[in-house]
Structures are given as structure tokens and as C-alpha cells.
């Protein structure tokens, strides 16, 4: 590994605890109760008490006020020195904020959490996403499936990518999920099954879209110095990068999200890590199309070659680049990428049983907030 422009935060912060609740449908439980259950699990995993925590970062639910730091702090009985809420989901953005808070000295041990009852609460996902929602809604371009279908159609047009090639995203992740007892969808799924399933928004089918589920996840992060005293091996944050596309459709070809390439460029150059060094890859998968896009934008294959790359089985169990070894959101649970982070930590610790990848040392987690933001982190067993 050659270090180029080394980030000042490289290896300075580690994940020392992860917690994930059961995933599925839990009527009668609030999003905040589920989040606090996840906090309890993560603290136990870290061997820490509530009183050890001086930072709290929470994640607000989609189209609901649930999950603010004020609500979670009250429910969990916490008066942290530092607290914040991000009002869009993904563990990566929360993790980056935690790294900033620890390295700046605002807090030393931070718990990050997300809980949702979006399935039981029947949260409405049939709305337009990204900027310019009003005109998209008038046109019937509702649900993330619509713009994702357009993005994949464009990929097909430019590069000849086939539906059969895209099928390998959902099929490979189902194979991983069959090895994950916590996953919601574990029934076999073959390419033939996939191609036989009806279109929802062509060219996308049901297996291409995340389910809607209830559940919670939490992480505990602290400084590398403190992390050495924890019972489980620390997982260090070696690199992180972000890029926004807040101008939405005014950005060139925004549905194909070329700005994810900017996240990748900064991620690799600030860490000295290269795609070839990566043992485990996690891609937040609201749709299968995001996996195809990010394999390319992050340089795991060339632009336009994601289809053949997937069809070669590289991302499956036993493949050269294990992707979403928890089953991802397509098969494990829809947790805005939080379970991807939990899984990366557990894999790096060697705790994953039947789906454990042999001796991994570097995991990369790539996430995005629809057509507006991207973020990625490098996690490692070594500092």
C-alpha cells in the first residue's frame, strides 16, 4: 500500500461495537424504541456502559420526525457532550460525522444509531425522489424504481448491458443471504427465477428493489487509543470521502451519478488504498442498479463493464470480490446501509459463520442518498 495524500484522520478512530436488532415487521414498536434496543446491543458488544458515552449521532426516519437526538437521548437516558441528527439515511454519513467529532475532541466515545418502523407504519415510498420532485410526480416518475430504471436503460443503451447480467446482483446477494440467519429473504433465487418475475418498472423487477422493513442498528466508535482496551478487535476507519450533487438534474447525466467517481477518487487518494486491496465490498443497494453503478465508479471494473463483471460471478460467495455479504438491502433488510457497516465490522472480526470470508483485512462501504449525495469509508483490521 502506498500512501499518497494521507488524511489526518487515517486510522485515528475505530468502531468498537456493533448492534443490530431482529429485522422484519414489528407492529406496536416505535422507531425510537427499536433504535434504543440497537444502542443497548452495540454497547454490550463494545463492553461499555451508557456512562462511557459522550456523543450521540442519530438518524431521522424518512417522512417522520422519529429518530432525532432529542427523542433518542430522552428515551435512552443520555446527556452526551455532543449530539447531532442527520435527516437522511446512511450509516456512512453518520460514521464520518463521528470521526470528525472524535478527532476534533468534541467527544471521545460516540454511539450512532438508526431505528425504523417504516414497514409497520406503512411509510409511503411511492413518491418522487431527489430534486424537482413536484414535476416528477406530475409525470408519474414516483418511487426510486423509476429513475433507477431510467439509469439502467441508459447503461444498456451505452454499453449493451443485459437484464440477465443485472440479475446477478440480486442472485448473488440472495446466495449470501442464505448464509445469514438474520436475513429476511432467504429463499433460493436463480437467474431464471429473476427473469421469470414480472416487471415493476421496466427494465426493473421486484428483486431489483429493496424491501421495506422494520429494524434497528447501532455502532460505537472511539479513538484508536481507547479502542485498544475494548474486548473485541478494533476496526479502524482508514479513509472516508463524500461528494454531493445537490443541483440534481442540472448536473450532467445525473441519474447515472458520475459524481460517485469523485467520491472514489478522493477515497483512494486520501487513503493510499487501491481497489485491488479490497477484500470485502459493501454497496448500499436501494436498487440493484446502484451496485452496477458503484462497481464501475469506484474502479472495481471499467466504466461499462459492470454487466460482464457481475455475470462472471465475482461478487458471489467464493468470488474474487465478495459484495454485500449480509445479503444487502435486497435480501437482508432495508436499513439505509447501516447493516452493511455492521456486517463489514463483523466480517473483519471473523464473526460471520457460514458466510465468513477468509481473513479479510480491508472492507469498503459505499453509500448514496438517492441522486443527491455519495459517501464511502474504508474499514480495516489494521491502523
Amino acid at each position: 500500500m502506498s500512501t499518497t495524500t494521507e488524511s489526518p484522520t487515517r486510522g485515528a478512530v475505530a468502531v468498537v461495537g456493533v448492534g443490530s436488532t431482529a429485522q422484519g415487521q414489528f407492529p406496536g414498536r416505535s422507531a425510537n424504541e427499536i433504535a434504543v434496543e440497537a444502542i443497548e446491543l452495540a454497547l454490550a458488544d463494545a463492553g461499555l456502559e451508557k456512562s462511557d458515552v459522550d456523543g450521540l449521532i442519530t438518524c431521522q426516519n424518512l417522512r417522520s420526525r422519529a429518530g432525532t437526538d432529542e427523542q433518542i437521548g430522552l428515551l435512552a437516558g443520555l446527556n452526551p457532550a455532543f449530539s447531532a441528527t442527520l435527516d437522511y439515511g446512511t450509516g456512512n454519513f453518520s460514521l464520518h460525522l463521528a470521526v470528525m467529532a472524535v478527532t476534533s475532541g468534541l467527544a471521545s466515545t460516540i454511539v450512532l444509531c438508526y431505528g425504523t418502523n417504516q414497514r409497520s407504519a406503512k411509510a409511503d415510498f411511492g413518491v418522487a425522489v431527489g430534486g424537482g420532485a413536484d414535476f416528477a410526480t406530475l409525470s408519474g416518475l414516483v418511487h426510486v424504481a423509476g429513475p433507477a430504471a431510467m439509469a439502467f436503460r441508459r447503461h444498456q443503451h451505452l454499453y449493451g448491458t443485459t437484464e440477465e447480467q443485472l440479475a446477478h446482483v440480486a442472485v448473488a446477494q440472495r446466495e449470501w443471504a442464505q448464509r445469514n440467519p438474520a436475513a429476511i429473504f432467504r429463499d433460493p433465487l436463480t437467474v431464471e427465477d429473476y427473469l421469470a418475475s414480472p416487471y415493476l418498472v421496466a427494465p426493473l423487477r421486484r428483486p431489483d428493489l429493496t424491501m421495506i422493513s422494520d429494524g434497528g442498528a447501532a455502532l460505537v466508535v472511539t479513538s484508536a487509543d481507547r479502542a485498544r482496551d475494548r474486548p473485541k478487535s478494533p476496526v479502524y476507519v482508514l479513509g472516508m470521502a463524500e461528494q454531493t450533487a445537490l443541483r440534481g438534474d442540472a448536473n450532467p447525466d445525473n441519474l447515472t451519478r458520475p459524481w460517485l467517481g469523485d467520491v472514489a477518487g478522493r477515497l483512494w487518494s486520501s487513503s493510499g488504498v487501491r481497489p485491488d486491496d479490497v477484500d470485502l465490498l459493501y454497496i448500499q443497494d436501494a436498487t440493484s442498479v446502484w451496485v452496477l453503478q458503484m462497481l464501475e465508479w469506484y474502479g472495481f471494473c471499467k466504466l461499462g463493464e459492470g454487466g460482464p463483471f457481475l455475470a462472471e460471478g465475482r461478487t458471489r460467495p467464493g468470488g474474487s470480490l465478495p459484495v454485500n455479504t449480509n445479503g444487502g438491502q435486497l435480501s437482508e433488510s432495508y436499513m439505509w446501509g447501516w447493516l452493511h457497516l455492521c456486517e463489514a465490522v463483523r466480517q473483519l472480526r471473523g464473526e460471520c459463520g457460514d458466510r465468513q470470508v477468509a481473513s479479510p483485512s480491508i472492507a469498503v462501504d459505499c453509500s448514496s442518498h438517492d441522486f443527491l449525495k455519495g459517501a464511502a469509508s474504508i474499514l480495516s483490521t489494521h491502523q
Partner: protein
Amino acid sequence: MTTDYAGPLPDTTDPLTGPHWAAARDGRLAAQCCARCGALRWQPAPICPECLQAGGDWVDLAGTGTIWSFAVYHRAMGPAFRDAVPYTVAMVELDEGPRMVGMLTDAADDGSDVTIGQRVRASYEPVTDDVTLVRWVRA
């Protein structure tokens, strides 16, 4: 006037978007152009995002463009579109530059006659006495 339209409706009295809807009723496609820097923008916005000049002059566009991509809704992904499926939504690259999404109303049910790069033109579809929506058909 057609009354069976079950989809969402815009507020045509909104001063920001009202001129667009008034133009659509007249069979014209209108968007804003910055009085200071000349940037053409879609969607409507109270400020030019290029030079931050407030306001904008409404100008008529040709109403023609090219399909950049499209999606075929076989299933209604929101309750307002239960009666509309199957339908096709296109991302149209206007000849003047900006991109605009809209239903492609002359597509086959399964979208099999639609391809990226096809030329399209705006079609003005009255759905209530007040509202005319901009749709697209192949040119």
C-alpha cells in the same frame, strides 16, 4: 372537459410555476431565462442558480427534444397512478439543453416501440378545466 383524471394536479396559482401552466394551456412550452446571465433553466426557481440573479424571464421553447432514457411502469408505485398503468415516463433532453421528464403518451403498453434517441415533441393534454399537462409524443 375530461373529469376522470385521477393523477396529481399542480397549483396553477403558484406565482413561481403559474406562467408555465398558463403557457401549457395555450399549447406552448415555457421555461425561465436569466435576465442577467442568460442561463435557461428548468425547473422553475426564484433565483438563477448560475449567477444568483433573482427572478427570470419566461420564454417559449421549441417543445422538441430527444429521449435520453425512459421507464415503463407496469405496476403503480403510488396510489395516484393506479388508473394510469401501464405508462411510460421519458427523460427528454430539450433541444435548448435542459432535461424535462414527462409521460410519453403514444408508447405501446409495454414500451417496446420506444428507444433512446427518438425525437419527441410536447403534447398539451387538458386534464381539468384549469390544468393542461405537458406530455410527450414521438415527433
